[in-house]
Each structure stands twice: as structure tokens, then as C-alpha cells.
């Protein structure tokens, strides 16, 4: 076996069948698993060691209900199975993961896959759920009828994986094929026409199953792969479909009708007991409350409220520990480096002050991610999309935009990449352009800092949670009209995407998996803090530290002697630090640009923070940390950034002596960060996915929008106050 190339096995199945759990179980590789339709967009591979010691290459294909290759992921599935994918070997076997509770619909996909000529093994997954519900399926009988091995499995508890491995080992030798329908003459004739014209005359390589896809699907992505010129190809396909129509079958409906007509007799007596099940499933009973017109909405709002509020109430003690740890580390490092004052400032004010200020928010981020994972794992996210759909539909967005937009709340980049599942180019473009408005997790530290400093102490955790929720909502609120505007102005494309979404059965979340997801997001946060954020922090420290002309010290000393003769040593030091900071490279720049942000109530230090955050928005935390540390404003009784901000005073100008940060300023900063596209990576991804023009346009547009909104927030806030 070692001399041959490794055998390859593909996993395919409907969304929410536990296919990805099975993949993780077999390969030991972990990946994100959600209950939300279409979450596995990327193709994933892993190595699976069979009981006989042989190794196979396991490919996890995107979860899909059928192979009607309309979107990119369905096309990936067809291409891989047919052996036309450039980055995957043609599989020697396909394992179809079938949800016992939806046997008929799941076997439809298996039947479509079998037409591509790949040997098959069927894994009847969620066997435990079926057993609990009194659903007994005779897997031996099913095996006889279908002609391929049928193995009951429970992916979450590893049950049946041994039997599956044995079945696969045997099947790799015997190459069993699923029974295929006998197509009526109208279909076989049309297929024969296509084969003659495309394969024999035009030398295309197409399997039987691919010819079927070309015939049955109105806009098949398989067609894009052909060498034949588009006009010629489309004429051929139209002719074949016309022939099918004349033969008495409506081309769009033919496959579903005929395939189910073939499957039903095979399954009807097996499924008889299923029909005797009670009429309402548990999921449906739960949904009577959760999808209720009034209660459902209240529960949704209440749930969001609890989620955002717990971010403040649960994380406090852990944050204190981290804060104390950072302060202690700063003290040690400061003591050890007294001989090298510049390096001391770099380490204490720059790295520890900057990165430390950022790390403090780890507990709060974990709390939020815990709830998101919980809602996804239980299957509630699809319900949230169901409840909120109407809010989106008027602006021309459709159900398929939900997944990308929802994942943009974690990070806009995977969100934008996920728009590849949207086959309508216009809807895709709009979704990409509004994705940066979804409040990504990088904005979270900014909200947490400002809310923690100015709202929580004064108004309590409830209002703090509410503000945090509002900040997440403001982007959505503006995304609607923006999408509508784009929808009206962009040229129309083909018919809009269908919105058909499954409401999967509720599941008891697995703590292990939630824990794993928390570990992944937590370690990502720490790694980011330790690498990119740390490096940027060092650069920003340098820009805030240098230059340090020695004559400045003399000038400050001289003016201090004249103005206030009895000045204390500490006060002098403080003035000197402030003077250095103000004439540093970044300080000069901030002072020059500050008038632009003056209407939003920002002083030059906030301006520096905002400007430094354009490559990555969370940089503002460490920038503010460094700014105040270098300015000598962090003293013993305000060792954390939040209390330092609360003490900051205007140095000059009409408001000298009054606090820099009041409620309107804090809100204005948060609004600015909620809307502005301060993320170099997102700009680059938009440029790659659409065009440079769109990237620059959306950057400029969102920055302008953020500025206007921030100014409005500040001005209205001041007027009210």
C-alpha cells in the first residue's frame, strides 16, 4: 500500500447531518462545526487510518442538499466527485452521511452522487436520536435494496466508526454502486444527444452524471467548465431540454419527480414506522415559543440582552487578575531595565502597556464567544435568521446573505469569503460591501474599554450591556438602507437567489466542542496580541517616543521656573513627558489632523489613536495605553487604562481643564469605530473579491459615514447634556 498513491475517500451529505463531526472523529482534525446551513464552505482534507493499517485521504465536501450545481460549493462537490477538481484526486469511494430522520431527502443526494460513477458507502448518522424517537430503520434491508453497505453511526459518541471503517475497507475492494433509476426514454434520448454533441463531437470529458446535471439544471455550473463556446453550448443545452419537454417532462421538475418516484418504493415500507411518529416533534414544540410572533421576538431580544450583559457581569474578576498580572510584570521589567532608559520605556510603556491593555479583554471576548457558540450549536441561529428575515428582505438581501453577514460579526474576512456561496453576483457584491459594517470582534475591545470606563461605573451592567448591544446593532441598522440604496442603483442581475432555509432540529450542545471553539478563539486572540499587535505596538511606541531633543528638557525647565517657581520634581517630570509626547512624530501628526476630528470632540491623543488604528482597529487600545503611559499619566492609583482615561483633561484650548472623555465623546468614538473600515486586511480582500475601485470606494465611503455619524453623536450628545 505504501508504494501506491494513497486512496482517497470523499464525505458528502446534507447540512446538519453531523458530517463534519464524523470527519473530525475519523481524522482527529478539528474544525468549526455549526448547526447553520452552509457553514462548511471550504474543502477540508485529513488522513484516516483504517483498522488494517492502511491510510486514506479523507475529503470533507461542503454540506449540500443536492448537486444542482448553482452555487460554488455545490459545483465543488460535483467536480471533486467526477474527478475534475484540480486540487483533489478523484475519490475511490464516497461516504454519504445520511440523517436517519430525513432519509428520503438525504438519499436523493446519494442517488445524484451515484450517477457520477463513484463506489459508495452510506453512514446512517444520528442513529441515537432516531432510536430515542422510536424510529427503527432496518439497515440490513436498506442495504439489500440500495446495493451498498449501510452503517449506522453516531458521530458524537464514536459509535459505529469501527463498523464504518470495516465497511469502507471492504468497499474499496468490492466497489459497490448504489442502484440507479431507470430513466424514461425522453431523458435517455436527451442525454444521448448531449453525449453525442459534447463528448463525441466536441471532445469534452463528461461523465453520465455530469451530462444529467447539464440537462436537468437550468444554470448548471458544470457548463462553465466546458471548452465549447458559450453560445454554442447554450444552444445545445436548450435543444436537449426542449426535447425533454416534448417528451412530457418539465425540465426543471423532471429530475426531482423521477428520482423520488424511483426512491419512494425503495423506502416507503421502511419509512412506514416513521409516519406513525407523533405529529409534533420536540423541536417544533420549542419553536411554538421561540418563533412566536410576540414571545419569539421577546425571547430573541431577551437572549441578546442576557448575552451582552453577561459580558460585563461575568468577566470582571478574571479581568482584575489579568490587570494585576500586567501591572506586576510592568513593575518587574521597569526595575530590571533602569540602566537602559529607552529600552525600559519600550518594554514597560510600549509592549507591556500596549499589549497588556489589549489582553485585559480576553475574558470578555471569551464570554461573548461562549454564547455565540452555544446558540450556533443548539440550532438557534437559523431561528434568529428566520425571525429577522423580513428586516433584510426589503433591502434586496436574501437568506444566503445571512451566513456571510453573521460570520462577519466575528471577522469580516471569512464573511466576505463566505459570500462565494451566493450565485447572484449583484447580491454578492452588496453583501460584500455591507459586511464590514457588521461589528467584528476586533471592535469589541474598543467598546469594552469605553463602556467599561464611562458607562458601567455610572449606569451599571444593565445599561453597559445595552450599549454594547446597541453598538453591534448600529452597523446593521445602517447596513439596511445602504444595501437598499445599492440594490436600487446597481444594475440588475439575474433572478434573485431563492431563500429556502432549513430549521434544523434542536440539539443538546456538546460542551467539549464549545470548549474547543473557545480555546481556538482565545488562542487566536492571544497569538494576535503576541505577534501583529505587539509588533505594531512597538512601531507606534517609537513614533510616540522619538525624537527626543535634549534642548527640550532645558526649555521646559526654564519656562517652569519662570511660571511657577516652587514646582515639585514630579510635576516637572510630568510636564517634560507631556512636552516630549506632544512633539513626537505621531504627536505632531495628531496635532495637525486634530481639527478634522474636533467636531467629534476628540483631542489630539484620541486622534492619534484613531489614525494609528487604520491598519487594524484594535490598535487604538495599545496606542492609548502608550500615549498615556508616555505622558506619565498612569500613576499608582490608576494602573488600568480605564481609570486613566476617566482622569484625562484637556491641556489647552477653550475646554482646558475639563475631562477629555465625557459620555458624548465616548459614544462618538464607539460609533466611529463601529462604522469605519479600519482594517487593511478587509480592504485587500474586497479588492481581491471585487475590484480595487470597490475597495477604495467602500473605504472612503465608510470612513466618511463614520465621521459624519461620530460628529452627529457628539454634537447631539453635547446638546442634550
Amino acid at each position, binding site marked *: 500500500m505504501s508504494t501506491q498513491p494513497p486512496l482517497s475517500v470523499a464525505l458528502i451529505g446534507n447540512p446538519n447531518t453531523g458530517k463534519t463531526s464524523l470527519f473530525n472523529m475519523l481524522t482527529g482534525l478539528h474544525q468549526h462545526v455549526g448547526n447553520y446551513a452552509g457553514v462548511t464552505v471550504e474543502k477540508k482534507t485529513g488522513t484516516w487510518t483504517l483498522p488494517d493499517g492502511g491510510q486514506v485521504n479523507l475529503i470533507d465536501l461542503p454540506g449540500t442538499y443536492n448537486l444542482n450545481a448553482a452555487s460554488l460549493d455545490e459545483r465543488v462537490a460535483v467536480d471533486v466527485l467526477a474527478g475534475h477538481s484540480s486540487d483533489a484526486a478523484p475519490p475511490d469511494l464516497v461516504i454519504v452521511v445520511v440523517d436517519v430522520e430525513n432519509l428520503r431527502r438525504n438519499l436523493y443526494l446519494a442517488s445524484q452522487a451515484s450517477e457520477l460513477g463513484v463506489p459508495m458507502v452510506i453512514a446512517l448518522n444520528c442513529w441515537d436520536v432516531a432510536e430515542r424517537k422510536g424510529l427503527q430503520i432496518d439497515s440490513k434491508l436498506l442495504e439489500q435494496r440500495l446495493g451498498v453497505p449501510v452503517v449506522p453511526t453516531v458521530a458524537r459518541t464514536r459509535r459505529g466508526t469501527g463498523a464504518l471503517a470495516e465497511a469502507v475497507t471492504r468497499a474499496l475492494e468490492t466497489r459497490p454502486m448504489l442502484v440507479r433509476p431507470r430513466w424514461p426514454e425522453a431523458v435517455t434520448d436527451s442525454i444521448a444527444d448531449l453525449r453525442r454533441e459534447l463528448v463525441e463531437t466536441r471532445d469534452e470529458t463528461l461523465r453520465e452524471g455530469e451530462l444529467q446535471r447539464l440537462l436537468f439544471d437550468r444554470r448548471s455550473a458544470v457548463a462553465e467548465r466546458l471548452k465549447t463556446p458559450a453560445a454554442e453550448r447554450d444552444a445545445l443545452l436548450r435543444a436537449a431540454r426542449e426535447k425533454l419537454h416534448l417528451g412530457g417532462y418539465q425540465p426543471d421538475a423532471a429530475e426531482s419527480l423521477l428520482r423520488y418516484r424511483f426512491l419512494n418504493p425503495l423506502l416507503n415500507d421502511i419509512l412506514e414506522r416513521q409516519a406513525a411518529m407523533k405529529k409534533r416533534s420536540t423541536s417544533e414544540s420549542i419553536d411554538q415559543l421561540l418563533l412566536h410572533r410576540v414571545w419569539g421576538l421577546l425571547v430573541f431580544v431577551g437572549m441578546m440582552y442576557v448575552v451582552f450583559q453577561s459580558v460585563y457581569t461575568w468577566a470582571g474578576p478574571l479581568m482584575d487578575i489579568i490587570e494585576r498580572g500586567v501591572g506586576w510584570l510592568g513593575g518587574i521589567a521597569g526595575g530590571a531595565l533602569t*540602566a537602559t532608559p529607552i529600552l525600559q520605556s519600550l518594554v514597560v510603556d510600549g509592549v507591556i502597556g500596549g499589549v497588556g491593555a489589549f489582553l485585559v479583554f480576553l475574558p470578555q471576548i471569551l464570554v461573548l464567544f461562549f454564547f455565540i457558540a452555544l446558540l450556533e450549536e443548539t440550532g438557534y441561529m437559523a431561528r434568529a435568521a428566520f425571525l429577522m428575515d423580513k428586516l433584510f428582505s426589503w433591502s434586496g438581501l436574501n437568506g444566503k446573505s445571512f451566513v456571510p453577514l453573521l460570520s462577519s460579526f466575528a471577522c469580516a*474576512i471569512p464573511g466576505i469569503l463566505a459570500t462565494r456561496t451566493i450565485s447572484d453576483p449583484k447580491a454578492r457584491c452588496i453583501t460584500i460591501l455591507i459586511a464590514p459594517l457588521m461589528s467584528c470582534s476586533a471592535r469589541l475591545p474598543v467598546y469594552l474599554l469605553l463602556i467599561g470606563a464611562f458607562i458601567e461605573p455610572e449606569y451599571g451592567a444593565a445599561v453597559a450591556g445595552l450599549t454594547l448591544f446597541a453598538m453591534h446593532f448600529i452597523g446593521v441598522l445602517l447596513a439596511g438602507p445602504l444595501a437598499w440604496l445599492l440594490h436600487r442603483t446597481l444594475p440588475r442581475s439575474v433572478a434573485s437567489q431563492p431563500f429556502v432555509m432549513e430549521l434544523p432540529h434542536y440539539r443538546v450542545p456538546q460542551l467539549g466542542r464549545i470548549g474547543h471553539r473557545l480555546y481556538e478563539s482565545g488562542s487566536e486572540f492571544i497569538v494576535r496580541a503576541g505577534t501583529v499587535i505587539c*509588533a505594531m505596538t512597538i512601531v507606534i511606541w517609537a513614533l510616540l517616543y522619538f525624537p527626543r531633543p535634549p534642548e527640550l528638557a532645558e526649555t521646559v525647565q526654564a519656562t517652569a521656573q519662570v511660571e511657577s517657581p516652587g514646582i515639585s520634581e514630579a510635576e516637572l517630570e510630568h510636564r517634560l513627558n507631556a512636552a516630549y509626547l506632544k512633539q513626537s512624530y505621531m504627536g505632531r501628526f495628531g496635532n495637525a489632523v486634530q481639527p478634522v476630528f474636533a467636531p467629534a470632540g476628540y483631542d489630539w491623543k484620541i486622534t492619534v489613536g484613531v489614525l494609528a488604528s487604520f491598519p487594524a482597529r484594535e490598535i487604538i487600545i495599545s496606542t492609548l495605553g502608550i500615549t498615556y503611559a508616555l505622558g506619565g499619566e498612569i500613576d499608582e492609583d490608576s494602573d488600568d487604562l480605564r481609570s486613566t482615561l476617566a482622569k484625562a483633561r484637556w491641556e489647552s484650548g477653550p475646554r482646558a481643564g475639563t475631562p477629555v472623555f465625557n459620555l458624548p465623546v465616548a459614544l462618538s468614538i464607539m460609533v466611529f469605530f463601529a462604522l469605519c473600515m479600519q482594517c487593511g486586511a478587509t480592504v485587500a*480582500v474586497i479588492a481581491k473579491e471585487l475590484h480595487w475601485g470597490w475597495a477604495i470606494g467602500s473605504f472612503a465611503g465608510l470612513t466618511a459615514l463614520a465621521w459624519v455619524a461620530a460628529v452627529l453623536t457628539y454634537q447631539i450628545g453635547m446638546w442634550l447634556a
Partner: protein
Amino acid sequence: MEFLDRILVFLVLGGAMVFLYRVFRRKKDKRGCGCGTDKCPTRKP
């Protein structure tokens, strides 16, 4: 001592800038989606 101080700071600063350059430049294997995480496993779009 002052000389050592300057050299060390210069080294750290240079290291940080080299690191940032390496993270954000286009990689040959087209890995790294541009999110800035070093060794990001996601393919470049």
C-alpha cells in the same frame, strides 16, 4: 550604557518592522488571507 540602550531599542524596532513586513507581504504559497495572523492557514482569496 547609553550606546547599548540605543542598539537594543534599534534591534527590537527593526525586528518588529521585519516581522510586520513578513506577515503582510504576499506569500509564495498564497497562504494567509490577509488577516495579519502569521501562518494563517486560510488561502489567499
